[in-house]
């Protein structure tokens, strides 16, 4: 049995009026499913969530581990990879609206109840509408382009540019060399950064870049050496730990072994 053919026959494309009928019926089915889900007792809910999580992860895990057909690099699940990727994209796109929905909810409430700062909330909601309408309806206009490029980009960049001031102030106040580790850290930062910037490279630019022992003393060469031979293995070792930990967490999530107090309590409510 070919899975691809089976799915194509189970869910055939609908055209003309049948298309709308199929959509309406499927939507009605979703509505019924919603109430059926709500009627489930607490244990069944947990089991359902665990099953759904497991099946979702099983697709990619199976697709990776299942042997490929001779002469190809595909197995019986590979055909579905693009479609599943699109499904995930669509679901993720719906999640993009969560933040917007939350913002609208909170700030609408602020305006209705006239809480402190409500004029700013009006500005926020108007900005959402203006940008959304401009982007969806007037994308090809200079108005939208300027709104995006000159206004949104400027504000976005400015918010993060203030970090430069804070980092200078924080580094000056907090960075006190009181231990061997701090000395090493500061020394490494100084050498690596001097080797990356032209002012630092200028100090040793008269030394040949390659071809003699003296080139070992060039700041840019020292900086590069520190990054490749000292920093790289250190971050690689950290990466190994992260990789093992990440795989363990992924397994625990896939098998629903992760437990959180909030969700445990909520899932038991019926």
């Amino acid at each position: 049995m070919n899975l691809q053919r089976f799915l194509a026959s189970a869910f055939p494309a609908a055209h003309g009026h049948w298309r709308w009928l199929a959509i309406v019926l499927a939507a009605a089915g979703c509505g019924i499913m919603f109430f059926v889900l709500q009627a489930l007792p607490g244990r069944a809910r947990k089991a359902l969530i665990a099953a759904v999580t497991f099946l979702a992860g099983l697709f990619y895990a199976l697709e990776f581990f299942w042997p490929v057909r001779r002469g190809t690099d595909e197995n019986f699940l590979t055909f579905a990879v693009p479609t599943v990727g699109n499904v995930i994209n669509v679901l993720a796109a719906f999640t993009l609206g969560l933040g917007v929905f939350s913002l609208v909810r909170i700030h609408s409430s602020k305006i209705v109840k006239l809480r402190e700062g409500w004029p700013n909330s009006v500005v926020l909601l108007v900005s959402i509408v203006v940008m959304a309408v401009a982007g969806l309806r007037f994308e090809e206009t200079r108005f939208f382009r300027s709104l995006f490029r000159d206004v949104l980009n400027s504000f976005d960049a400015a918010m993060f540019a203030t970090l430069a001031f804070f980092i200078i102030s924080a580094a000056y106040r907090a960075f006190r060399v009181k231990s061997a580790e701090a000395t090493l850290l500061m020394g490494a930062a100084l050498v690596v950064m001097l080797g990356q910037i032209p002012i630092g490279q200028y100090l040793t630019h008269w030394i040949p870049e390659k071809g003699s022992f003296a080139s070992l003393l060039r700041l840019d060469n020292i900086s590069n050496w520190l990054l490749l031979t000292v920093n790289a293995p250190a971050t690689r070792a950290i990466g190994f730990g992260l990789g093992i930990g990440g795989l363990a967490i992924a397994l625990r999530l896939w098998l629903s072994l992760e437990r959180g107090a909030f969700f445990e309590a909520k899932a038991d409510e019926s």
Partner: protein
Amino acid sequence: MEWSHPIGIWIGAIGTLALFSLIYRENWLYRLFEHMFIGLAAGYTIKAAWDEILETQWWNPMVHDGQWPWVFALFGGFLFYTIFTKRYNWMSRISIGVLLGFAAGQAFQATANLYIPQIRGSFKPLWVNEGMLRAGSGLTPLGQSLNNILFVVIIVTVMTYFFFSFEQRNKVVQGTARTGRLMLMFAFGAIFGSTVMARMALLIDRVWFLMHDWLGIG
């Protein structure tokens, strides 16, 4: 078509200065432009989510190409929004579970492809001869050997430092872990310096915008 407009540049410049006013003190002007920024960003998210993904990958296939099963994706997306309700918010875990499940399933391949080359690359030859040198490296065999030895020593010492499965009582192990800790300081120093460089670049971009695009200086 041009991307910029003088009025847009003026609004952007005034907003930039208003947002920069935070470094002196939080004030009403900063809060006003902060809210405007959040609103514009959220509005753009709506546009991008529909234009780039939902219209092309969900709506068109469902409505124009007869692929009616995409209705179920709407149901899955809708379940996310039940998180805002008290009674139905457990259902959001179904959709979250789907996304997490997919991500977890991909972790096997991702971890293997990411770390196996790293592990392989960590077994460096401790004694290098002329034929093993990379073209254009500019190093002698002795130099490359010393580099490789140092590389392996650092990996081992740092991994020893992060080994928390049992208490490190042995003096050799403790010494190794301490060496690893010192080696980590080089990595953190490099990260610290480059973080400062990154932040400065962001500020320089904004100052250039104000000087060049807005005031026409430079």
